[in-house]
């Protein structure tokens, strides 16, 4: 199922980089990068990080909001939810990008450009999980339900393959991956303890979206930058979805059911996926945050899907 680029609008809320010429230049590159891919960009500049309600009042017909802010601010405090409600009660995805320096902004811009430029040939999803029946059962079920002519599910739970093989599969530019298991602010418990520095494939292509459906991988507890933020800042994924606190297994199961349904209904960007998959329970979404590009496409190219198909697993 090949997809054509649709016209979208993003609202970027950013700080004034008045004394930092490089950051301003790199921001213009980011803006151009979106515009080249049929995405209109609206920009709001601020002196002090705006509160949720202030952003809410500015959101009207945009498809997504990206809030760029000082990395000293935690994702938990920068945003309340992974989406923002308009006055008409419409949910719009909102993401956070921690700003440390102009170099990070350039890396993010390159990732956005790469992910939006590649062909969107297949809805391919890597189903990752820790080696535990509670979590492998979820990916088993997702793989069974998603195995249709329109979706290519790859079951890569920790009991089936090595961390290195899994990373190689992801770093070949796969559009979407979801992880179920235990999580920590510095990474996943699965795959013998996965950390951001394990993503080190040479000439790696960024993942479209990585959904880390577990506890705390967007939390800053005892770490300068969370696992989800680090992956985005390193250009390993265009967008990451992670929790700033502990989550419940029942809530993550709700997400798995929602994601499965949304993919079968044709969700093709992280924005569409999150909005359609979001459970109604406040507890299920209140701890999650989007980090990175809120409009990242989640489909994969033919080459990435072919490579994923050949990833070595040990049944």
């Amino acid at each position, binding site marked *: 199922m090949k997809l054509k680029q649709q016209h979208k609008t993003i609202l970027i809320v950013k700080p004034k980089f008045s004394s930092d010429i490089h950051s301003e230049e790199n921001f213009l590159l980011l803006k151009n990068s979106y515009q080249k891919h049929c995405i209109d960009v609206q920009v709001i500049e601020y002196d002090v990080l705006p509160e949720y309600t202030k952003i809410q009042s500015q959101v009207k017909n945009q498809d997504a909001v990206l809030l760029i802010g000082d990395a000293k601010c935690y994702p938990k405090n920068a945003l309340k939810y992974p989406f923002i409600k308009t006055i008409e009660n419409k949910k719009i995805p909102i993401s956070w990008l921690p700003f440390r320096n102009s170099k990070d902004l350039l890396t993010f811009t390159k990732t956005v450009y790469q992910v939006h430029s590649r062909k969107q040939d297949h809805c391919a999803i890597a189903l990752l999980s820790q080696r535990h*029946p509670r979590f492998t*059962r979820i990916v088993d*079920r997702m793989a069974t339900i998603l195995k249709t002519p329109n979706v290519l599910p790859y079951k890569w739970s920790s009991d089936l393959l090595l961390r290195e093989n899994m990373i190689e599969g992801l770093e070949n530019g796969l559009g979407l991956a979801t992880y179920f298991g235990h999580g920590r602010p510095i990474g996943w418990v699965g795959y013998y303890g996965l950390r951001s520095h394990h993503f080190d494939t040479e000439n790696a292509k960024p993942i479209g979206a990585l959904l880390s459906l577990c506890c705390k991988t967007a939390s800053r507890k005892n770490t300068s930058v969370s696992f989800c933020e680090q992956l985005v800042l390193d250009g390993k994924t265009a967008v990451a979805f992670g929790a700033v606190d502990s989550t419940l*297994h*029942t809530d993550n*199961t709700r997400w798995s*059911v*929602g994601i499965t349904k949304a993919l079968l209904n044709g969700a093709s960007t992280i924005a569409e996926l999150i909005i359609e998959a979001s459970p*109604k*329970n406040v507890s299920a979404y209140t701890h999650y945050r989007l980090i990175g590009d809120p409009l990242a496409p989640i489909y994969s190219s033919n080459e990435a899907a072919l490579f994923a198909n050949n990833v070595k697993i040990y049944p």
Partner: protein
Amino acid sequence: MKNTIINTILLHFKDVKPKLKIASNDAHFKQELGVDSLDMAEFIARIEQEYRIEIPDADWPQIATVNLLAEYIRNAGN
């Protein structure tokens, strides 16, 4: 109305536990049908998606049979 809800519940139940036969709509999910908490989590999530309702985890003991769940959904819709 209730019959339609029951049929939908049974359809989702069949998806989650294809081999399980429900002899009575009053059979207890856990004690009589052997549905474990993981099956229950998926089953409830599917029902929530279907009816766009919220079933808090604390309410799960109240919806231990197909009939009780159907009644719960009907009330949630009102």
